[in-house]
């Protein structure tokens, strides 16, 4: 820690800068966002009682039930952490159960990070987040061939603010059917 100095930081106001737009980083749209699930942060409902969700007649895919825990498809993490948090385990386990009962369904697990860290480190961290979800799904009985993983690192932020509220949204793994 020495000579950082250059005490005076002079910022020229040049004509070219005056036309500056205030702020613009825009997130790449989540091209692979699950069509069915805008994933609201609804309180983690208890397993919906089978009796009230559906009459025994028609085959209703639980996946399309917005009140089902299966509607939650993202796990979230603290900074620089890839371990699935306790709060998110029920939803991963629910997807494990569903997928093991529906071997014809496939998922892509997409790991994402906030913008802190290097791009490459975050690519690796996002991969580890996605791999962590895959591992838990596999332990829950899902066939490895039903799953692929991808990391977007910090490259596809869902929220673009430089603050914890945005970062929290970006540190996640999406389970994409």
């Amino acid at each position, binding site marked *: 820690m020495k000579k950082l100095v250059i005490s005076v930081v002079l910022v*020229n106001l040049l004509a070219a800068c005056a036309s500056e737009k205030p702020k613009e980083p825009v997130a790449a749209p989540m091209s692979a966002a699950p069509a069915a699930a805008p994933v609201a942060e609804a309180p983690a409902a208890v397993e919906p009682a089978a009796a009230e969700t559906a009459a025994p007649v028609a085959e209703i895919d639980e996946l399309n039930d917005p009140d089902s825990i299966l509607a939650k498809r993202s796990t979230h993490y603290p900074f620089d952490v890839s371990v699935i948090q306790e709060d998110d385990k029920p939803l991963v386990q629910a997807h494990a159960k569903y997928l093991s009962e529906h071997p014809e369904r496939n998922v892509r697990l997409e790991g994402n990070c906030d913008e802190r860290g290097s791009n490459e480190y975050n690519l690796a961290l996002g991969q580890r987040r996605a791999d962590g979800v895959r591992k838990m799904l596999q332990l829950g009985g899902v066939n490895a061939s039903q799953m692929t993983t991808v990391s977007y690192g910090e490259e596809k932020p869902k929220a673009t603010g430089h603050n914890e509220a945005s970062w929290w949204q970006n540190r996640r793994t999406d389970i994409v059917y």
Partner: protein
Amino acid sequence: MLLRAFRSVVGILFLVQASVTNAEMTIEIIGAGEYQVPVAIVPFGGDGKLAQAIKDVVVGDLLRSGLFRMVDAEGMSPHAPAEVSYPEWQKRGAEALVIGTVTAKADGRIDARFHLLDAVKQAKLIDQAVSAEDGQLRAIGHRIADLVYEKLTGDRGVFNTRIAYVNRIETKYKLMVADSDGYNEQVVLSQDSPIMSPSWSPDGSHLAYVSFETGHAVVYVQSLYTGQRKVLADFSGSNSAPAWSPDGKQLAVVLTRDGSSQIYLVRPDGSGFRRLTYTDAIDTEPNFSPDGQYLLFTSDRGGSPEIYRMAIKGGSVQRMTFGEGNNYSPSHSPDGKGFVYTHFTNGKFFIATQDFKTEQMEILTEGGWEKKPSFAPNGKLIMFASEARGRGILATVSSDGRVKQRIFSQSGDAREPVWGPYP
């Protein structure tokens, strides 16, 4: 030598602010070298328009180095040594003087001849012809600036080198190559998917980079001459962080094909993968030492991201960074004596260097959103990604931390810069 007297003024910090601007680009310079050589650049004789353009480039280059200040040449127009009135230049305080002529040939070729004169000793330092194809006017200016810089500082100039970076405008990503001052931008690749981690081949002919165009991270190698490209690594999961060996015969890359992110070697044609690290941790961002014997890399094997070093031929792995915060993105200095990296602490990113002998971290920047540093091939400047006014920009800092510049391109976020080799 002309300019040895300058260390005498210790403790006084000369500050300069200078700006070079045109429609496309704004460059801000902050700070200055301990001593700045007073130099006069006289507009060349011959074609007036070409002369002005060359002068602008030379002045811009020399100012950006922070090691020069411009002496007013108003009312003076010598174009040959015999026309120079040394007493007048001494009165104006010039220690060095650049004069010359420029002409455009019928075939579009541009010929310049310039002299660098020692105004104090009244001696010729350089007398050289520089020429270029049509459209390469800036290259002439950079070449002259390099020669002047080299003569007056003793270090090789880097004004005629190139940089690569990624420009992101909303959801559009462009892999760019530009002159080291950010001008003369050329698009290498343009697409709607992220592009990361460009890496120059040692001869400057190819870029390796990461593209998400197929939906996940794949490493490509592309010729800058033909535009032809090929897949270097495309295994399941992520393929990333390409880094060329100094002899250009192999690259280090990071793959997750065997589990966590690990470092492998591969030939430039995508053959002969060989795994180098064996951990359950993240090992990434490999960077070769100039002698090709070692890799620096980022790993969280100790619990959080830090810089490590390993010999290519195997053996023990040495942790290089300690203390508070995290560290990322190591890149060797061209002389191999140290490295530059990103230091993250208290919510801010800094550009820092470390000398292998002293093992001391030296922070070069004020801190903020500063990432992905790389040295200019002369080791005197470091380029990195920064942020200002809500945008990603390119920035440089001199390796002693004294002189900084920020380069604002026309639009979008500039990311992932990397300085190319000498031409």
